[in-house]
């Protein structure tokens, strides 16, 4: 399953585990600047469709920046410039003619802190459909049920669908945000430290959920919790100072990393 490691640009070491459904995202020679400060240096990375890819690295290494580049959330930051390409199914997402809204629909995002909207659970879940102007009541109800079931929240929420989402616990709110992210039927789920504000049991539930959603969705997760990366992901990318140091099979990264820097980071020697 693991392809041969071939050193490539910028010295990144690759030993990526291949999925059986090809690749979905191709990040090529990607650099990013916040004003004069360069945050990403020539990142070359291909994401396998249907697998879970974890991005790890010490604070400020560029992993969140990279994640946010994938659905062009960094566009909102003044003075941000990029070079290189990111292609989603062979469509360049940074093409000036690309439809950013359509892109973000294909890439659902879940943030560090649960951010339900101040409305009912039901309205939260079907928000992506409301935005699209869907009026069909049955379709809305079916989507809400399917998404809440996928997010393992249905049993807890089905009797209170029309109560405020803000009454849910933190862990439930985060699963609601995941339900909302998948209600729009994206292909990729981007998760930016989705468990860092959750208690251990809620964290375990979200991890279980990631496991269940993988295969159906391509998941890219940024996490500070290395054990979490080790548990949930198929491939792990280790970043340091804006560079992709090592990208490969998670099992290898955590038992026998090829790069000294990866080794020092995963064993807790710096970062």
């Amino acid at each position, binding site marked *: 399953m693991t392809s041969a490691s071939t050193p490539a640009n910028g010295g990144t070491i690759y030993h990526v585990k291949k999925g059986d459904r090809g690749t979905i995202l191709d990040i090529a020679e990607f650099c990013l600047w916040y004003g004069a400060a360069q945050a990403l240096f020539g990142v070359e990375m291909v994401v396998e469709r249907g697998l879970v890819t974890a991005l790890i690295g010490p604070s400020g290494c560029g992993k969140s920046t990279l994640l946010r580049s994938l659905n062009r959330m960094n566009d909102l930051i003044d003075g941000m410039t990029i070079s290189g390409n990111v292609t989603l199914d062979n469509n360049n997402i940074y093409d000036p003619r690309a439809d950013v809204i359509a892109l973000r629909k294909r890439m659902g995002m879940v943030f560090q802190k649960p951010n339900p909207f101040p409305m009912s659970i039901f309205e939260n879940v079907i928000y992506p459909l409301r935005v699209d102007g869907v009026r069909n009541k049955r379709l809305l109800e079916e989507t809400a049920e399917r998404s809440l079931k996928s997010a393992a929240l249905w049993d807890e929420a089905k009797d209170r669908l029309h109560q405020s989402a803000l009454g849910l616990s933190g862990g439930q709110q985060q699963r609601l945000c995941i339900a909302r992210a998948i209600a729009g039927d994206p292909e990729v789920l981007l998760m930016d430290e989705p468990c860092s504000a959750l208690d251990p049991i809620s964290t375990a539930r979200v991890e279980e959920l990631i496991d269940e959603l993988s295969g159906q969705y391509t998941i890219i997760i940024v996490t500070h919790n290395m054990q979490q990366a080790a548990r949930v992901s198929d491939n792990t990318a280790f970043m340091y100072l804006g560079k992709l140091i090592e990208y490969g099979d998670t099992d290898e990264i*955590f*038992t*026998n990393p090829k790069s000294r820097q990866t080794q020092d980071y995963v*064993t*807790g020697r710096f*970062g």
Partner: protein
Amino acid sequence: MSQGHTVRKYDEDLKELNNLLARMGGLAEAQLKTAVESTVRRDTDLAAQTIENDDLIDELELQIDDLVVRLLALRQPVATDLREIVSALKVSDELERVADCATNIAKRTIRLNEHPSIKGLSSLPRLAEVSQRMVKDVLDAYLEKDVDKAMDVWHRDDQLDALHTGLFRELLTYMLEDPRNITPCTHMLFISKNIERIGDHATNIAEMCHYLVHGGPMRDSRPRSAQNRRNANKDGGGSPS
């Protein structure tokens, strides 16, 4: 290691683990030495002392087990740390067995000394010497993470096997010569077998050294001995095992 862990207690625990392993290795080596010395010199007291000392090794093994379990539970080690901890557990197991073999040798020696000495047996001291060297060198190699040195020990196992087979044949002739030799020769045969087993434990430790350093089993470096072993099997039991 390029640098220490952010959590210093983790480093201290890993150091402690290595110290325990080094002590256990030293003790196992000493046990082997006194055991074979007691055989060669027909020294029953020394053999009894060796048997008694085995408890120290068992005690160290328990300490290592405890520390390994604690490290696994508290630190969730990965990469080199994980390999170091897992292989320490396995190496301590091998050392415990080396010590067991030494105890067996001592026990047989006591029984053997109840009989007149077997004449000749020129190869026993040589057999003992080779096994002791293997244990000493493999421990050094492991603690120094020196894979080349470990592989050297690994290859020496064939030599030990050959010496054991030679001794077996020698004992066989004595037994054929005079049936009264059968009892002492059988004891001696078990002693030789235990020494030969110690070589196997040493090769296992050599393989752990390879795993510790390279993170995988030693697939590529096997050819010579694997070939020899296959041939040995084809011989149809020329060597007692």
